[in-house]
């Protein structure tokens, strides 16, 4: 195959990656996007094989078959819930591969005793380091998520200092390799070993809940490692695809952080600092999860069955119009919305009715507690808008509670329950609400009107 054809076909592969990644951005086209990018990968592989011509096919076919088999088996057998760690693992292998390519190329030149051009040796160091960090870091991320080790941040005094030192030594060794005339085997091993250790150390202090961000970042690293490999063996498709993934991964980790309302720096180095922002703790040490309007929007947008539980807070925020608008939006997207009206929601009999009538919510969407209480269990999302006491499960069980015995709306039985309120403050009865600490509950803090407006515009964009 003439070299220009090879290169053109590589370009085709690169374009397929670009188009594929682009499509992965939208729910409707995502799956096709993945297939397109897969096609790009196939093109790249076949072009490479054709270009290589007559070679030792045992090794190649063996490697391809073994690798594919392992990869596919793992991918197809893994539980849906274990996806993130699977991605981490696979990503680690990708980084490992880049590292090995760099290493092989180095060792070949080393054995040949050739002098390596400065640019080449530089990118070689980068491909080794980044590949190694990706490999070991990903393995740690995998271990944390798979609970092979504790998911909690592992920290100790002077950790930052140790890491910094390690990093300096690593840079020093790599620099030595670059400036030296003939390749040196010592620094080579040193670099690989230290980079592997660095990967471990970098991921250790990050908590399990933040792992997705880390994986995305490591993914970015593995892209950069591939690109560096591309520099080493002077191959464009590696550079393009690697760089694409490199930047995409960084942006994605940033998006993820934004969705968690944190900075990337906070995720990566947060455990070192004094502030632990893991979430507000109640008196009994329970944890509250909060969610942003952006994050919630997508889940709401695809919900089939939604129940709105309005409470006094909706009245205070005068958010009835927004509540209705949101409901309309959900219905336009094919979901069904009911309003569950608790007999004593608000501060006067019929308080919610007045407001919802003002917002022109049709009467037939309003349901009494008794009519609707059984439906929570198969409700995708329950929106608790400024209600508190009327959804407090303590009234069912806690005989000491002042609201014990009051029938409540079963918001806690919904598949997902999102509570709109400004703080963790109690409602009229002045009692803590256990619902807020439940697994399936998320808090959307802020004035209900503002939160709903935000949510509406986010849902519109989904």
């Amino acid at each position, binding site marked *: 195959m003439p070299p220009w054809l090879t290169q053109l076909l590589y370009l085709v592969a690169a374009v397929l990656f670009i188009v594929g990644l682009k499509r992965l951005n939208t*729910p409707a086209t995502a799956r096709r996007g993945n297939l397109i990018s897969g096609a790009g990968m196939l093109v790249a592989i076949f072009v490479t094989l054709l270009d290589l011509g007559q070679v030792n096919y045992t090794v*190649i076919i063996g490697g391809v078959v073994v690798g594919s088999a*392992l990869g596919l088996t793992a991918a197809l057998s893994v539980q849906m819930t274990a996806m993130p760690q699977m*991605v981490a693992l696979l*990503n680690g292998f990708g980084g*490992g*591969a880049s590292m090995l390519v760099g290493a092989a190329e180095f060792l070949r030149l080393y054995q040949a005793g050739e002098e390596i051009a400065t640019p080449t040796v530089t990118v070689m160091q980068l491909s080794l380091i980044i590949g190694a960090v990706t490999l070991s870091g990903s393995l740690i991320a995998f271990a944390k998520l798979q609970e092979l080790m504790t998911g909690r941040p592992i920290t100790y005094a002077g950790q930052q200092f140790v890491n910094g030192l390690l990093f300096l030594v690593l840079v020093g060794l790599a620099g030595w390799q670059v400036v030296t005339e003939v390749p040196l085997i010592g620094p080579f091993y040193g670099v690989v070993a230290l980079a592997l250790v660095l990967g471990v150390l970098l991921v250790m202090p990050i908590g399990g809940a933040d792992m997705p961000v880390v994986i995305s970042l490591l993914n970015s690293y593995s892209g950069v490692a591939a690109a560096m490999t591309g*520099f080493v063996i002077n191959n464009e498709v590696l550079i393009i695809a690697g*760089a*694409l993934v490199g930047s995409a991964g960084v942006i994605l980790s940033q998006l993820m952080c934004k969705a968690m309302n944190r900075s990337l720096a906070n995720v990566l180095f947060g455990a070192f600092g004094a502030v632990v922002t893991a979430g507000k703790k109640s008196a009994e040490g329970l944890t509250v999860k909060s969610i942003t309007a952006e994050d919630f929007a997508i889940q709401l947008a695809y919900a089939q069955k939604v129940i709105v539980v309005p409470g006094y807070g909706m009245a205070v925020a005068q958010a009835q119009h927004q509540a209705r608008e949101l409901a309309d939006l959900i219905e336009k997207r094919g979901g069904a919305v009911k309003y569950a009206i608790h007999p004593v929601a608000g501060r006067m009999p019929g308080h919610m009715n007045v407001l919802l009538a003002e917002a022109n919510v049709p009467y037939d969407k309003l349901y009494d507690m008794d009519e609707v209480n059984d439906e929570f269990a198969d409700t995708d999302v329950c929106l608790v808008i400024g209600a508190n006491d009327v959804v407090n499960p303590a009234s069912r069980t806690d005989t000491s509670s002042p609201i014990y015995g009051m029938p409540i709306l079963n918001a806690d039985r919904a598949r997902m329950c999102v509570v709109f309120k400004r703080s963790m403050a109690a409602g009229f009865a002045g009692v803590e609400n256990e619902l807020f600490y439940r697994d399936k509950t998320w808090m959307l803090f802020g004035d209900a009107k503002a939160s709903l407006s935000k949510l509406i515009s986010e849902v519109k964009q989904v």
Partner: protein
Amino acid sequence: MSTEALIIAIVIFTLSTFLGVELIGRVPPTLHTPLMSGANAVSGITIVGALIIAAGDRGWISTYLGFVAIVFAMMNVAGGYAVTDRMLAMFKTKETEKKQ
């Protein structure tokens, strides 16, 4: 690697980097994980490097390391695309159901 080749590589790298940034524009949070996984699959492109190393006549070290690299990279590629597709299939069903 010649300096000129390096420069060109850098140009291409830079352009691709910008492109990557722009591509991941306003991805909705549900797609964060699939997108991460899909991008991970693409990073398996290092398979090309692995193939070249393993196949070329570059001595036994390259062949051995290349073999391992192929296995690793291929796991990343095959597993990566398969996992992504599984995630998206789930997603897809929900989408399609809605349309009915």
